[in-house]
């Protein structure tokens, strides 16, 4: 067995982990599992793709930055795409989720997210058709790094980006006032309200962080694999599994959970074949639910 699966696993794991941060935050703060989270991913990616199209139309073709497959347009478009995805999440919260939350039945909100997910995904299929597309069709040469392992410059850049983003979100949630308010909301919403925490702003920050990271994860998939309307939906089970494995509410847990699932998937692909990949998350999910339902870093529910 070649060690290549470690690199592949870390890459897939980063994508899952970035997505799982949003899942775990919505679950712990807004108290529902958001089935539309995968579709934020896909929408962010298509938004980024469209902005790159617009930039190319304005400035002509831009040469990629030396060893990478993409140039500054992708970076600019990614930032704009993150903002647009956050806007989409806030909009959806305004018209749907915030109203469903008022009915005080968590599972109704889950159902609403299920409906929204179906609608969002099919809308993407309507606009862009279900044909896969790519940010760049250039083929990158993977560099050998020893032990028979190869890695492309794009993969290195995106792994670094993931590390920076995870560290940033971790610091934001543990070291700032906003982050502490978020923790208070997740631990005891009633008490948080009484102590004068601005609930509406905590909800907004939660959506913005979750959606922006979903967009990054989607663009990573787009750069390294391909772009399809179903790309986010296919990531849903791994993301849920990662969030539960890491312990609901824990950001380092979500990322670690993502990496574990990514590595397990990559290992399974080598050992039993790529067609069974999607079963890995399910097996891990069931194992966690049976053995330790609060996950690695979870806290027991009050």
């Amino acid at each position, binding site marked *: 067995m070649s060690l290549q699966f470690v690199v592949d696993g870390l890459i897939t794991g980063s994508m899952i982990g970035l997505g799982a941060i949003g899942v775990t935050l919505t679950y712990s703060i807004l108290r529902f599992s958001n089935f539309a989270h995968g579709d934020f991913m896909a929408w962010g990616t298509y938004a980024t793709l469209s902005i790159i199209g617009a930039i190319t139309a304005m400035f002509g073709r831009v040469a990629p930055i030396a060893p990478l497959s993409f140039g500054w347009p992708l970076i600019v478009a990614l930032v704009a795409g993150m903002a647009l995805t956050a806007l989409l999440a806030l909009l959806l919260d305004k018209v749907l989720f915030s109203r469903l939350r008022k009915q005080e039945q968590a599972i109704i909100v889950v159902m609403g997210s299920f*409906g929204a*997910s179906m609608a969002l995904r099919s809308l993407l299929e309507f606009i862009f058709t279900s044909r896969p597309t790519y940010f760049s069709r250039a083929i990158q040469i993977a560099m050998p790094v020893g032990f028979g392992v190869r890695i492309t410059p794009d993969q290195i850049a995106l792994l670094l980006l993931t590390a920076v983003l995870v560290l940033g979100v971790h610091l934001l949630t543990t070291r700032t006032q906003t982050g502490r308010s978020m923790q208070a909301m997740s631990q005891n919403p009633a008490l948080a309200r009484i102590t004068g925490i601005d609930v509406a702003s905590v909800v907004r920050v939660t959506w913005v962080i979750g959606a922006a990271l979903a967009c990054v994860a989607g663009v990573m998939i787009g750069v390294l694999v391909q772009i399809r309307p179903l790309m986010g939906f296919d990531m849903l089970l791994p993301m849920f599994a990662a969030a539960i494995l890491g312990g609901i509410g824990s950001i380092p847990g979500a990322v670690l959970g993502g990496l574990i699932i990514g590595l397990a998937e990559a290992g399974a692909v080598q050992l039993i074949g790529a067609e069974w990949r999607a079963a890995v998350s399910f097996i891990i999910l069931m194992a966690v*639910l049976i053995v330790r339902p609060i996950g690695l870093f979870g806290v027991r529910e009050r």
Partner: protein
Amino acid sequence: MIDLVGYGAFFLTTALIFSLITLGLNLQWGLTGLFNVGLAGFVAIGAYTSALLTTPDDPARLGGFGLPILIGWLGAMFVGGVAAALTGIATLRLRSDYLAITTFGVAVVVQLVALNAQKLTGGPFGIGFIPRPFGDLAETPLLFNLSNLAIVSAVTLAAYLALEHLTRSPWGRVLKALREDERAAISLGKSARFYRVQAFAVGGAIMALAGALQAHFIGFIAPDNYLSILTFQVWVMLIVGGSGSNAGAVAGSVLVWAIWAGSGALTSVLFAPEQQARAASLQIVAIGVMLCVILLVRPNGLFGQRPGQVRFGKKAKVIAGESGS
């Protein structure tokens, strides 16, 4: 005219099979409050089980045991029920969202097995030559469609009556009590988890039966029949009809299937063939928006019980009347 009757019979048969799935979901969600977003997986389990049991021997894959259709249906219910029971046992002691996520995973895995376990399921090409009840009538389509409709109606009616009876039985009352006030029910000595697993298993068995019925009605199954869109359609049917009411589940299924089939026919008239796939996705968007709007505006559906208006027969009405005056 005869074509119209034939189509009507075909339409109703499909709608009633959907009703049967919706009845199963109503037992799980409407009566017991268990959220199942992987019901397509349970329908698929039923369809494949029955197909394996009843098809003639096929050297390319396991089985084809050539058993009678009725055995296939019973087998489907058994396997579907066991699968649902296992899912329930693993997750029902946890938060309700975990059941949702797990059922979602069940659907993904069933889809994966259907696609990849060629020896068992025939892979992407599915299983054909599934024996059809009244298969020898196939030469006269009208008679064939009508006899299919008769048998599907009979099964749906039986399931409906059985569920109505169960709902009113002490067993159904425990489920309702658990849904409305879990602590009170537990304090009366009812094991919440045990009753919920039972309800989830019976619901799964009904869904599997519906899958088997459909497999024998079409005569051919493939993994594509059991994508998440099926789950979604059935949820919309239940929510439109109003969860908690068996009659609502049936009415909602027929109504939503009429809207679905009607809008499908409309798009095939309005759009050029190369635009059909796009138009079909717009159809799903419309249904998704409809689900969200119903949840927002009329969360109890067209026939559902209003909250705080739960009726328990004459006595409750009298008490309500007294307190109202």
